[in-house]
């Protein structure tokens, strides 16, 4: 009986330590980002650039632009994601502080969870800033479907963050990391991009959440599968 309660206490304190460490890492990353604002600025500017360039590339046909709007938004997000990860990786390489963090970690996956949450937050801020601009330029009323959009964007950005954080850490160790990161990240995230673009497009067209249920299920499964997979292999990435 006491052994059970001991292992219960151990488990509880393990999760408590895990949560504490994730929060400490997240606070540190956000504090650094708030001081420098490098990552967010580059992501936001790049996303806006992508949207504007696509706008010019597609032409002046408002109906056509409306149809491809959802694709343009998600492409801008994917590429902004890649850029943000590259900046994070570059900053980390300059400071080489990863080893210090590893020494303090109880469970190493806390690092992955914290990084993923930070990346999600950056993407979230980029979306909040970019979406109104897209609404104005593409003449789409996002407010009407804001509830559904929140769900789609939340799930989609979670997936992008999970895959992005994983490949960001792997690409750090390669010689041509600027090339390797998009090469790894973009093909693997294709199912997510397909489902997110379709779900967003249908929401804009006026469909309800129930209509896009199977896309949401696909994104959800993608997120869960990759989250579990990365947690299992994360130790192998950070250790030598």
């Amino acid at each position, binding site marked *: 009986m006491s052994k059970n309660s001991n292992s219960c206490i151990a488990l509880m304190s393990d999760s408590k330590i895990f949560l504490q460490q994730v929060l*400490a890492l997240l*606070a540190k990353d956000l504090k*650094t980002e708030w001081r420098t604002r490098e990552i967010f600025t580059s992501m936001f500017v790049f996303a806006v650039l992508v949207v504007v360039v696509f706008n010019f590339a597609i032409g002046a046909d408002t109906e056509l632009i409306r149809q491809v709007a959802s694709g343009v938004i998600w492409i801008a997000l994917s590429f902004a994601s890649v850029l943000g990860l590259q900046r994070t990786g570059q900053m980390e390489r300059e400071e080489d502080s990863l*080893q*210090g963090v590893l*020494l303090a970690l109880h469970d190493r996956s806390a690092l992955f969870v914290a990084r993923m949450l930070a990346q999600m937050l950056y993407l979230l801020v980029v979306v909040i800033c970019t979406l109104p601009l897209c609404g104005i330029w593409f003449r789409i009323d996002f407010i009407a479907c804001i509830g559904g959009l929140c769900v789609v964007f939340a799930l989609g950005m979670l997936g992008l963050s999970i895959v992005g954080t994983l490949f960001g850490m792997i690409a750090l160790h390669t010689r041509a990391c600027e090339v390797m990161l998009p090469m790894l990240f973009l093909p693997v995230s294709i199912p997510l991009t397909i489902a997110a673009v379709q779900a967003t497009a249908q929401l804009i067209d006026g469909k309800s959440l129930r209509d896009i249920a199977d896309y949401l299920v696909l994104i959800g499964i993608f997120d869960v599968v990759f989250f579990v997979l990365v947690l299992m292999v994360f130790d192998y990435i950070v250790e*030598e």
Partner: protein
Amino acid sequence: MVHLKGVIKHFGTITALRGIDLELKRGCCLGVFGPNGAGKTTLLRILATLARPSAGTVRIAGYDAAKEGEQVRPLLGVLSHRTFLYGHLTAYENLQFYGRMFGLEKLAERITEVLQAVDLVTYAHQLVRTYSRGMQQRLAIARAILHYPKLLLLDEPYTGLDKHAVSRLHDLIVHLHAESCTIIMSTHDLHRGLDVCDEIAIQCRGKIVYRGLSLGTDVQEFEQLYSAYVR
């Protein structure tokens, strides 16, 4: 306190460690000397659980470092020639971060204590990227001792420091040794190494080729010993 048995480490096709056996009692200070490429840094990294041995066992304070790493890590303090500090945060924030990671109680008092020990209290709220190399190294020591480690791993701690900073660091290490902290230090500075260490080991090409007490050994004797063992 520290038991290594038959530790071998391969990095792809390179063999960095070829069977290291090491025993160290609590409170002892071991100096590891050797040429570049002998595997000193690899040995310290394996002790710090930053790398996993390809073969052999590593036991620290009774825990298996490979399997029970999370029990071992809070006991270790690591100082390397890289500082593991965040340039865009202040010294106080850096220590606060590590303190939170280790779950220290009464964090503010402890931070003030270690900053006093390394004499950085006046600069506590400046960004670390404005620090000189010597100051950064002192802050790194503060980070290393923040969580009351039982085993201190120092990888060439005197590198890149001026004379003043070196003597300050040396005094601090002597002080920690007096407080029964187990220390393993790898250095090229023979004089200071012999001064503070109880035992010495010479590592060459992945093996420990000499192990002995340092009592009474002066620098010339040691240099002769060193040349004899390292061809």
